[in-house]
């Protein structure tokens, strides 16, 4: 069952089309990575989903309702947004107590979520002195305050150190295991690849693809890496055989959709010297980059 439904969503800011006829769904209990380069429209989509931005056309719904019409939004949906601020003069604990008071949650929840995100020690410190990573943790604590079934996280890994990113992965996995639905955005696939079940990739405000991570992995290519002083000669030779190869550095080629045998025979026939050759698989990041830049060039 779809928990989040984005349907024909378009948002224009003046002349700029930030989101362009975007549609996708997020099913209950799944962790979905919402991916795209900076400026792809991820934040605008999420802010529209949360009722902060009014769409130009289309709709964004949670459990069939616009966010603004949810009966108890904080218990239903937890959100971490970029540029969602804290008053620098207020302590972390007081920040959460303000939210709890306004949402009608018990004040004891503040200490519970601070412990959950590892900020118990810093609870009484003013947020103004917090590092970016600590702010992200406090943002997550705020999102978890109402123990929501749905989590919407905009670039939660930003500003986290490697240990923090590792911790975040664990937290997301834990939340997913509890049956919560998580939509997490990132401009770096690797940040979320180990955690998500599915990915929604957008670029230029449009949907590029929605697929499982496995389907995305299947799109990776077999590549042959060749180190040779005659890279350009070999490249045109392979091109003549219909094999596409890209230079990678001064004396290296990356040939796609071929085998070491084919490249080796072609090189031997032309008397090309080869220092080194091996097969490798393109990684997810390459697929992501290829998908998003292709789309970016089109729009």
């Amino acid at each position, binding site marked *: 069952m779809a928990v989040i439904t984005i349907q024909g969503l378009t948002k224009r800011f003046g002349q700029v089309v930030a989101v362009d006829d975007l549609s996708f769904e997020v099913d209950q209990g799944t962790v979905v990575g919402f991916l795209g380069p900076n400026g792809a429209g991820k934040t605008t989509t999420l802010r529209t989903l*949360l009722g902060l931005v009014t769409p130009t056309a289309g709709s964004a719904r949670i459990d069939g309702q616009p966010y603004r019409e949810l009966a108890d939004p904080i218990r239903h949906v937890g959100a971490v947004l970029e*540029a969602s601020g804290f008053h620098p003069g207020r302590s972390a604990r007081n920040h959460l107590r303000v*939210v709890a008071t306004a949402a009608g949650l018990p004040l004891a929840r503040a200490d519970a979520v601070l412990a959950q995100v590892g900020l118990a020690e810093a609870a009484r410190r003013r947020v103004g002195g917090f590092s970016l990573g600590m702010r992200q943790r406090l943002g997550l604590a705020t999102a978890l305050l109402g123990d929501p079934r749905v989590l919407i996280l905009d670039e939660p890994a930003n500003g986290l150190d490697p240990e923090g990113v590792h911790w975040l992965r664990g937290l997301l996995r834990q939340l997913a295991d509890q049956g919560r639905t998580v939509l997490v955005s990132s401009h770096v696939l690797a940040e979320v690849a180990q955690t998500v079940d599915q990915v929604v990739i957008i670029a230029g405000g449009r949907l590029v693809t929605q697929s499982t991570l496995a389907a995305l992995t299947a799109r990776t290519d077999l590549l042959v890496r060749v180190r040779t002083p005659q890279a350009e000669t070999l490249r045109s030779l392979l091109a003549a055989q219909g094999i596409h190869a890209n230079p990678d550095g001064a004396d290296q080629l990356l040939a796609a959709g071929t085998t070491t045998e084919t490249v080796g025979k072609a090189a031997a026939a032309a008397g090309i010297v080869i220092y080194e050759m091996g097969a490798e698989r393109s990684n997810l990041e390459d697929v992501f980059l290829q998908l998003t830049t292709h789309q970016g060039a089109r729009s």
Partner: protein
Amino acid sequence: MIRLVRAELTKLATTRLIYGVAAVMAAFAALTVAANILDRQGAPPLSADSFPMLVGGPVTLLSGAALLVGILGMTTEFRHQTVTQTFLITPDRGRVVAAKLVAYPLAGIALALGIVAFTAAVATGWLAAKGITPSLLDARLGRVLLGAVLAAGLCALVGVGVAALVRNPVAALVGVAVWVLVVEGLLMSLLNIPSSLAKWLPSAAAAALTNPGGAQLSRLAGTLVLAGYALALALAGTRLVVRRDIT
């Protein structure tokens, strides 16, 4: 709604602004008492009769302080982007503005009560040292207190209204200062507005509460006029706040 008002008051109580404003106002109140007692040129000699005047010294600035607190209570949310979280909790933005319209006048009234009590304590002590025993039952004292409370509450209300409309703290503060210090005066002199009309302008209506008497509106009329300005500003501001994208 009550929990939203409580949340607004918690916001106010968990940052330093209100304590700073209270401390500055207390210092100013003590100074006005000192100035009014030490500088007696042209004034009748000190007596128990001087007490209400001494207590009323800081009332005008007090309403300015309440205005400041009201303005910052709204603009700070935009400046620090806490408004995102606020609207996530309460997507019905009109209710957020309404909660502020209740909470900040309450804070303004509390501030006024505190500062008036403090001023009265300082003045009583000083007069006692001079062998004068003021009466706390003086009817004029009651009028000073009522004026201070009404003015501070309504000015905080105006502050929230202005800030809902303007959002930027500096623009809101400068705008209000320019209006009170320059625009109203210019309007009166340039357009040659008779005082029968000028007394309906916002700061003249506020003055009817802080410095009653003369050609000004009655206290009741001043209260209603000021409340009317505040609500008109708040309504216009709310319409903007509800429609604007929070990015």
